């Protein structure tokens, strides 16, 4: 090993972007980062940012930071989507579009990885952080410091995946990097290593968060909140976190084995030398299938909160809803093989997994029926969260049908790897997961910030997303039936696919405009915040979070609530009873920058591992471990809050009673 190799690993000048589009991506990224840093410096907000936000262990602030990062990553993933649509609309016949094949493949690989790991997961953990402690009547999560470390690991992963815009390339092997394509023999550059390590770090953060929120819901519910009084969103989060705890270790191991193949000349999944690529495919889907339920369950939870509130009625079939969550949790672990019915397994193996897959539609169907019967005999207010719900039911049901069709193995032989499949899972993830999270964000925003999001812009955004979605993905269903496979950077003009790809491109543009409306909504809401100020209970809510002032105080509950009923706050409003507010002394966690510092060292470690700079790996490992150990010796981690202090603060904050 030469000195240069020792110091710089595989880094050299040649890893910089080599074409105009790649450069523009890198420059936009750098310009964005510089602009943000400059703005913070210009407004002199560094100290404020560090002490109020970056080091905060308040789950509400961590939740907001998750959503901000997820929003930024949505811009990146969305830009990738627009490039994909542009390429496929233009690269036909003699024209080869705007991107090289390799660049196109990097872009769709990045699009999928980013949207799942950094948009959907980030958004989900954001909402969970914002809502779960408030809903269960807790002041904090079970492990506040771990929560901060999880968030910063998520950020480190997001930062690493974006490094590939400037330094080196990204994986071209798709969002799940099937070997042997992702092995060294076919992907010799560092692209796949970026993929492995950004997912590895973010995945570690997700696993720790899973443990944290599982423990939070199990151990920190308010007095009297028995299991069958738990708000439905928390039930879904508990289901989702159970899946995280069981599924993410599989991902961690699988990624580690792939990295060993690539770096240490091992042969777990290689073609030849005893490697078994289908073992990887099994393992990645043993994580990957539960992953989609990890994402969708909290979205179901959001709808289970929104529909009763905006229908002014209690949730229909609470017990059924709980049962269906756990049915989904269990079943989601025994369906993974449906992602590769075409492997050539025997008919009985395929039939078993086909049946299990179809069976998952039953609890999902029951949920939809229960939401509909919650609306029945209600008094429905069509606010934007309710519109997202309506859009969700329509699209998700149709997407679900597409899923049930593909659960039949022989049908899947024809539809697998086609754009029909692509359209199906986008329907589930966009109209299911994302619509649900948008609804949840609109719904809980006033609880965090004390003012509502602007409805006018929210409704515009909804219609653009809905119509854009139909135009973007309707054509993909048809294209799949016409035999169009996914991930094509080019196709023959004689196939006649171009018009549909063009329509899909228009749909993507409408979605982009819809996203701009959401930015406008945020700006408008901040400008009009004084008009949109709300009481603690802007929607006539039913659960505990609406019983405290908006924005919720850092300690959530001045006095720990006691729960007597399922919809505790609603029952209190109905019966006129009040919580007995006896203030007591309590302690809250102090801010800590250790989580951010650990994640920074882990980033260094991962960057070193990507570029084979082993001294950086050692430095990162040492730094992260030392910081963690030092933190365990820090005994001054809590701040004591006196009852008199709380009483003083609360005097001006009593929530206005129901609307």
């Amino acid at each position: 090993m030469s000195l240069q190799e020792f110091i710089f690993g595989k880094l050299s000048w040649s890893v910089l972007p080599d074409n105009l589009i790649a450069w523009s991506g890198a420059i936009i990224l750098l310009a964005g980062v510089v602009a943000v840093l400059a703005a913070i410096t210009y407004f002199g907000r560094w100290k404020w940012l560090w002490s109020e936000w970056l080091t905060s262990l308040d789950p509400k602030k961590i939740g907001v930071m998750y959503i901000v990062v997820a929003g930024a990553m949505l811009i990146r993933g969305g830009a990738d989507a627009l490039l994909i649509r542009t390429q496929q609309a233009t690269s036909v016949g003699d024209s080869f579009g705007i991107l090289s094949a390799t660049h196109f493949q990097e872009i769709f690989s990045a699009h999928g990885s980013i949207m799942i790991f950094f948009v959907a997961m980030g958004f989900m953990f954001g909402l969970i952080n914002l809502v779960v402690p408030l809903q269960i009547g807790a002041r904090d999560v079970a492990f506040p410091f771990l929560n901060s470390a999880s968030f910063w690991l998520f950020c480190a992963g997001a930062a690493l995946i974006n490094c590939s815009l400037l330094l080196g390339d990204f994986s071209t092997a798709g969002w799940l990097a099937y070997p042997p394509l992702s092995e060294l023999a076919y992907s010799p550059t560092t692209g796949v290593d970026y993929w492995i390590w950004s997912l590895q770090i973010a995945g570690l953060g997700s696993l720790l968060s899973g443990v944290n929120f599982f423990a939070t819901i199990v151990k920190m519910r308010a007095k009297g909140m028995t299991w069958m009084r738990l708000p439905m969103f928390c039930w879904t989060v508990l289901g989702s976190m159970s899946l995280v705890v069981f599924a993410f270790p599989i991902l961690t191991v699988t990624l580690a084995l792939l990295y060993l193949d690539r770096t240490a000349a091992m042969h777990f999944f290689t073609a030849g030398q005893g490697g078994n690529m289908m073992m990887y495919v099994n393992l990645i889907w043993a994580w990957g299938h539960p992953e989609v339920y990890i994402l969708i369950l909290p979205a179901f939870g959001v709808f289970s909160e929104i529909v009763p509130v905006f229908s002014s009625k209690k949730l229909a079939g609470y017990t059924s809803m709980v049962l269906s969550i756990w049915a989904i949790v269990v079943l989601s672990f025994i369906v993974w093989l449906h992602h590769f019915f075409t492997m050539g397994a025997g008919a009985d193996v395929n039939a078993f997994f086909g049946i299990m897959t179809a069976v998952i539609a039953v609890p999902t169907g029951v949920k939809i029926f229960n939401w509909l019967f919650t609306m029945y005999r209600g008094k429905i207010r069509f606010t934007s969260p309710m519109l997202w719900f309506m859009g969700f039911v329509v699209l998700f049901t149709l997407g679900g049908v597409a899923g049930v069709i593909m659960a039949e193995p022989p049908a899947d032989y024809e539809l697998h790897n086609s754009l029909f499949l692509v359209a199906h899972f986008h329907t589930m993830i966009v109209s299911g997961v994302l619509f649900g999270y948008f609804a949840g964000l609109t719904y809980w925003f006033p609880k965090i910030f004390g003012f509502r999001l602007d409805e006018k812009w929210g409704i515009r955004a909804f219609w653009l997303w809905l119509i854009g979605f139909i135009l973007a993905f309707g054509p993909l269903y048809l294209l799949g039936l016409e035999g169009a496979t996914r991930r094509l950077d080019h196709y023959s003009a004689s196939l006649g696919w171009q018009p549909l790809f063009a329509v899909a491109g228009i749909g993507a543009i409408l979605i982009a405009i819809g996203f701009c409306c959401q930015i406008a909504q945020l700006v408008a809401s901040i400008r009009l915040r004084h008009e949109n100020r709300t009481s603690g209970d802007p929607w006539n809510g039913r659960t505990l979070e609406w019983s405290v002032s908006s924005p919720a105080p850092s300690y959530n509950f001045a006095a720990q609530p006691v729960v007597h009923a399922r919809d505790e706050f609603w029952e209190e409003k109905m019966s006129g009873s009040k919580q007995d507010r006896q203030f007591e002394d309590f302690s809250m966690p102090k801010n800590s920058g250790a989580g951010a510092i650990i994640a920074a060292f882990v980033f260094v470690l991962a960057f070193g591992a990507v570029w084979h700079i082993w001294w950086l790996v050692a430095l990162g490992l040492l730094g992260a471990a030392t910081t963690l150990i030092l933190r365990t010796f820090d005994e001054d981690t809590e701040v004591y809050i006196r009852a008199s202090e709380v009483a003083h603060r609360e005097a001006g904050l009593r929530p206005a009673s129901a609307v």
Partner: protein
Amino acid sequence: MFTLLLAITTTVYVRSANIAILEPAGPVAAAEKDVIVTTALLCALVVVPVFGMLFVFAWKYRATNPDAHGEHHPTWDHYNWIAEVIWWIIPSAIIAILGVIAVQSSNALDPYKPLPTGEPVLTINVIALDWKWLFIYPEQGIASVNLVEFPENTSVHFYLTADAPMNSFWIPQLAGQIMVMPGMTTQLNLAASRTGDFNGFSGNISGQGFAGMAFTARAVSQSEFDEWVASVKASSTPLTYETYTALAQPSEYAPVTYYAPAADVFQPTVMKYMTPGSSMYSAMLEAMGSSAAPTATSTTP
């Protein structure tokens, strides 16, 4: 308005365009299409009431409809347990039917299972290369790149492997996909019930030239097929292990090429990945020493 426009344009489009999967040209694809259509119709039994209830409830119980306020019942959580059980039973019943279809159709349409016809079977060995398809006809001793020709109404039995990353072999109008992997042999049986050119694709991303892994599947009459075999034999370069090694090098959008006489490099290609530490050529020689007959390649279905 938007919905109506959407419905009209979609209907017009579906009626005019060539929707490969809905226009099968062989018994396997036809049966697979039937599974798709049957499943969709069964699902409609749930979808239609869901949509009906969604829009009726949304309209009738809107807060701005004073007529429905009398019905407002904030604590109505429907139904007694009987109603609740019904909501579980309706989808369960449909899924039970779908489960029966899954078992039956998975067995009937097992891609490894030869078609139940008395017709003679044509064996074709397929190797996915970077980035083209090599079709070897062991009985005829010929090979072709990116074009596979066979007689109509004849069962074709494909054995498939890859000398490249994983691919997926798909002729939408004739049969669904089967994965194609290095070091492994998969199988696919199909037949064309009419003559014609059918588009074939790879479904699984395999690297830079992936988009060019399209090929033509040509079903012709028996006499045309015989003529084609004769013409390939008459005017082609031989496929030897050396020419195969050159062909296996990465290339994009490879033109249709014929080889005759063609050595059956299929089994050595599979074995190459099964033999630790050996170079490709020596592995091939080794495998040649044993039997390289195509029938020996069949793994137990």
